[in-house]
């Protein structure tokens, strides 16, 4: 065996796969652990054999960027190895995501909690942008939550570099509800401002507990945006009518954010509105957002360990013997290119969870 293949085999041996936690058309995600320490990990196995062009672009992007980006608020890629025709990404194990938390009706969010999640999102994003990387798919289910409460940006399958003027980029990125108007109008030259719009939508969603701008089609998305924020004028957003896919959508009046976000502080609404500025060049940068007065005003951000957690997250910390019955069934197939175990299998066991003491950190988590 070649030295390179040998090294690959050695790496493979360091990681053990336990149960399958999700399966999609192009990847299978396993819960696993580091053989030497027992540390929990997620192993994303990408089936490469099926692609006629070899390693596919989203796997390549994910590996390329995560190999370079090391930050507390970005998911850590621990290792990469191949097995036969599969590519395996070993990622840090994260037990839930912001979407699950938002949807969990049992949880109550304090303004300080939202501030904490926003601070962590902006920190991770500022690091991406400082490294000239656009994420291009920010949404609550790509913001994963570690057992200590830290938020981590994940899924770099659509990420790319930016900053080279004159390079065309595709406008078919970012999940529709989080997609900024310049992309909906077909802009092929854009910047880090596209990610900021998504963060603005997530910010609003954390307060509303439901997606803020949920359009039913790309066309309807623009209408939904304009209905919420008013149709932009030439003064608001110079030149937008010249964008490739511009169509007049209709005239909607501007309504103050205050009408919808009745309980939010002035600082909160100020930062939110700066994320949702139509003119991309005037939208706030991640770096400036971090020094926005919102983050320095009372109430201060909650400590990550004190943030609300899903029941699923609590049970995930349990040793397996504590769980009854068939926890290993492969029924949980709702993998949306994500890395965490779906909540379904464990949610029903929250009754068990509550009786146990979770204050002690579990070994290896």
């Amino acid at each position, binding site marked *: 065996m070649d030295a*390179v293949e040998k090294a690959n085999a050695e790496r493979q041996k360091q990681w053990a796969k336990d149960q399958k936690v999700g399966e999609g058309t192009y990847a299978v995600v396993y819960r*696993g652990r580091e053989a030497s320490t027992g540390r929990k990990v997620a192993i994303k196995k990408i089936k490469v054999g099926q692609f006629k*062009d*070899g390693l596919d672009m989203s796997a390549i992007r994910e590996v390329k960027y995560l*190999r370079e980006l090391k930050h507390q608020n970005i998911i850590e890629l621990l290792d990469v190895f191949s097995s036969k025709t599969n590519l395996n990404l070993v990622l840090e194990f994260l037990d839930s995501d912001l979407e699950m938390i938002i949807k969990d009706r049992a949880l109550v969010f304090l303004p300080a909690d939202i501030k904490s999640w926003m601070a962590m999102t902006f920190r991770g994003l500022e690091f991406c942008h400082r490294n000239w990387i656009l994420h291009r798919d920010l949404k609550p289910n790509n913001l994963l939550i570690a057992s200590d409460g830290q938020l981590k940006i994940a899924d770099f399958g659509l990420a790319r570099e930016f900053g080279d003027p004159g390079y065309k980029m595709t406008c078919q990125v970012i999940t529709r509800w989080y997609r900024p108007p310049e992309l909906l109008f077909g802009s092929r030259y854009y910047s880090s401002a596209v990610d900021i719009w998504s963060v603005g939508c997530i910010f609003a969603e954390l307060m509303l507990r439901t997606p803020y701008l949920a359009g039913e089609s790309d066309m309807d998305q623009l209408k939904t945006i304009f209905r919420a924020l008013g149709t932009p004028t030439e003064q608001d957003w110079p030149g937008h009518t010249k964008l490739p896919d511009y169509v007049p959508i209709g005239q909607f009046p501007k309504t103050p954010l205050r009408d919808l976000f009745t309980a939010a502080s002035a600082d909160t609404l100020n930062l939110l509105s700066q994320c949702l500025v139509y003119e991309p060049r005037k939208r706030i940068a991640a770096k400036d957002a971090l020094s926005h007065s919102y983050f320095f005003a009372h109430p201060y951000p909650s400590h990550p360990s004190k943030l609300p957690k899903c029941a699923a997250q609590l049970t995930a910390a349990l040793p397996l013997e504590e769980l009854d019955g068939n926890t290993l069934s492969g029924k949980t197939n709702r993998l949306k290119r994500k890395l965490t175990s779906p909540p379904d299998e464990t949610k029903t066991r929250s009754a068990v969870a509550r009786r146990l003491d979770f204050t002690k950190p579990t070994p290896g988590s």
Partner: protein
Amino acid sequence: MATSNKTLTPLYEASTQFKNWRHSSEDLAKIRSSLNSAAVAVIRQTLEAYEPGSSLAVSFLTPDEELLLVRLYISKISQLCGFFRFPEEVEATAVSYLKRFYLKNTVMDWHPKNVMLTALFLATKTTNNPISLEAYTDNIPKTAPSDVLELEFLVAQSLGFEFAVWHAHRALWGIWLDLQTVPTAPPDRALLESEKYDAAHRHLRNSRLSDAELIYTPSQIALASLSLASPELAAEWAEFKFPLGSPSLSRLQSIVASIKTLIQSSSQPVDVEAVRAVDLRLKLCKNPEKVVGSKAYLAKKAEEERKAEEKRNRKATDVQQAIAEGDLFGDELTRGLAVDDDDDDD
């Protein structure tokens, strides 16, 4: 915030390139000679195993001869990129991949022709300039899609899956932009002195044939290329960045001087005849286990197949046993059995 108190690491210093792909020239020589002698030992043994005495007549390649062959294929990357009209980033990335590959492998195991084609194809994808494999191989004589695909994992593994590369041509562009805004800049410098930038860029392209990028930083190589084209401009930029007489300036000057030598010595065109002779000898001394159809190759395949068969049998026995014990869905985990790694067909 806790993070803002720390001094920020320069972006480049956080890169995998900075951490894993910089060597001294002595280091490079050592890596190459140990790869070379390890390969020779293995191939000699394989040859002897199939035909005792047959390795005595074989003249193996030296590390320098291997390097010569790699250099020829680096120059082929430029030609192909010109043909496909790939952006410079693709070309530069593919060149880096090919060089990095041969810091982990030898040409006696893997001929640079197919490695080069795979490195280039991979580079189109990692730089976000993908084309279909068919469109790629259809335009390259005597090349099938499988020639590229078969090596893709090996190339990616050899690169440590570190696909991001920092390029000197970007640094040169940055220096050129700086030079247009320094206080000493004459008006219209971009227009009036553009041929100096072009000349620097030609030197920079030549630097790709050398080991410069494995030893120096992109901006050092860029400055050296500029210095070859116009020592005055290079000095103007350096003096703008560093106070006169500062130790870092004199250190920089000596680095630039060594890179200039390196670039100049690699700008002579590759001697095609010499390479052809090396390539002819390579046909006789390459690893027979990697020559499709050879006895050694067939034997290796048979051995691999035997191991796979053994594994399948073991798996079947395990399942049988589990059924017999009636715990098909039972305590698999508590027994510490991991999920099988090779369930490709699920």
